[in-house]
């Protein structure tokens, strides 16, 4: 009887241990989900096993906003997606992920424009949408909220805090084998970022803003290549790829861009001229994509 009582749990432990033997990441995954019970919020059946010969490392929303700020564009608060929309997005993984990206871009835009109270509000929006994706742990650990409040007027410190959150979310998606969510979220972040840049250019006609917009548009091709790896993981991805492709085509049809690409040369976008009608086509497509994500 005693033997039975002792050996049964040990045997169970042995089976659990050895079943993880071939894939140590599975073991980490189990441990993580124990720590954060909210991980069940995400449909874990969507976990994707991947083994591609080529992968894509996409930049962060924070880095894009950092580069954009150098163009000297003024802060336009009306361009931000309202934080009141948060609850609208808890409908599908696609909607959660793209809008997590949108709010990440808005947060970064506020941060590098030293709009610290707004940054706090957008961090909360990221946290709320992030919770729909099972990311509570990334936002709750290390007294993040208190540290953010304490350092709210210190750009470097706040950027560090947000970078740490980003690393944690990257790791959580990795551990949950949900790399596709990272890519979809980045597509959302990029859409918001090019939306802000194109609207800012439409308003001020600042040439440096246009140059930055064109540089950001170069990312379209890489995003689509990354999305194509996960085409079947969420039903909305096919349409997202098509919308990004339309923007990419309009961009590549700008004569100076076209010539540079055909010659396989590095184009200096500071010297590229974009006509009013070319810009209108581009910005129309950007607004359309952004609307499809945020509405």
């Amino acid at each position, binding site marked *: 009887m005693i*033997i039975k009582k002792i050996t049964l749990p040990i045997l169970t432990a042995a089976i659990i*241990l050895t079943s993880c033997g071939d894939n*140590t990441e599975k073991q980490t995954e189990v441990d993580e989900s124990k720590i954060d019970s909210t991980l069940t919020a995400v449909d874990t059946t969507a976990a994707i096993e991947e083994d591609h*010969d*080529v992968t894509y490392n996409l930049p962060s929303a924070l880095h894009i906003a950092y580069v954009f700020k150098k163009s000297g564009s003024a802060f336009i608060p009306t361009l931000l997606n309202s934080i009141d929309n948060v609850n609208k997005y808890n409908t599908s993984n696609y909607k959660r992920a793209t809008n997590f990206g949108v709010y990440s871009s808005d947060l970064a835009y506020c941060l590098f424009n030293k709009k610290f109270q707004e940054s706090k509000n957008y961090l909360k929006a990221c946290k709320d949408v992030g919770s729909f994706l099972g990311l509570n742990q990334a936002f709750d650990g290390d007294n993040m909220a208190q540290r953010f409040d304490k350092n709210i007027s210190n750009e470097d410190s706040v950027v560090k805090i947000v970078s740490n959150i*980003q690393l944690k979310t990257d790791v959580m998606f990795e551990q949950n084998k949900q790399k596709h969510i990272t890519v979809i979220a980045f597509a959302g972040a990029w859409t918001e970022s090019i939306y802000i840049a194109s609207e800012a250019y439409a308003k001020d006609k600042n040439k440096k803003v246009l140059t930055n917009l064109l540089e950001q548009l170069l990312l379209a091709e890489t995003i689509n290549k990354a999305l194509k790896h996960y085409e079947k993981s969420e039903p909305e991805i096919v349409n997202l790829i098509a919308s990004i492709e339309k923007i990419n085509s309009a961009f590549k049809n700008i004569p100076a861009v076209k010539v540079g690409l055909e010659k396989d040369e590095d184009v200096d976008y500071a010297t590229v001229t974009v006509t009013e009608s070319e810009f209108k086509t581009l910005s129309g497509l950007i607004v359309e994509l952004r609307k499809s994500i945020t509405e």
Partner: protein
Amino acid sequence: MNKIFKPLLTLFVLVGLMSFQGGDTILCDAKQLKEKAKEGLDPYKYDSSELTRIMYKTKETVKEVEVPLFIGEKYRFCFNMEALPKAVEIQIYNKSKDSKNRKLLFSSKEGGIDRKVIQFEVSKSRQVYIDYIIPPTETGSYSGCAVVAIGYK
């Protein structure tokens, strides 16, 4: 007492043996590996990171990571190669492995491919391609992972 301890001992031995079943497969702890790579970025700000699963096969294989960059920005790449059972060479190019006229920007051979933490800095590039050159193995079928963290300033 033997009635209790004999089966227990057998079970412990069994658990011990079974836990080594994975052979040369190394634990890929994404959190630990990425955090360590991030430490190597200082004073650069953390931008992003990529964990690449490395499967050793009976012939040499290449895994590529495409990294878009903003021209004019300064970047540091910090690789954490701790979770690899056999050293993998890192090569960085200006074009993808399918391109004909690509230029090698960096190889971890200079300085030794056995290093666990490797740094590389670049500016004035719009795109770089990290190639992990995975050596062949006789037995095949063991794995690990390589991590790169990217920082900007």
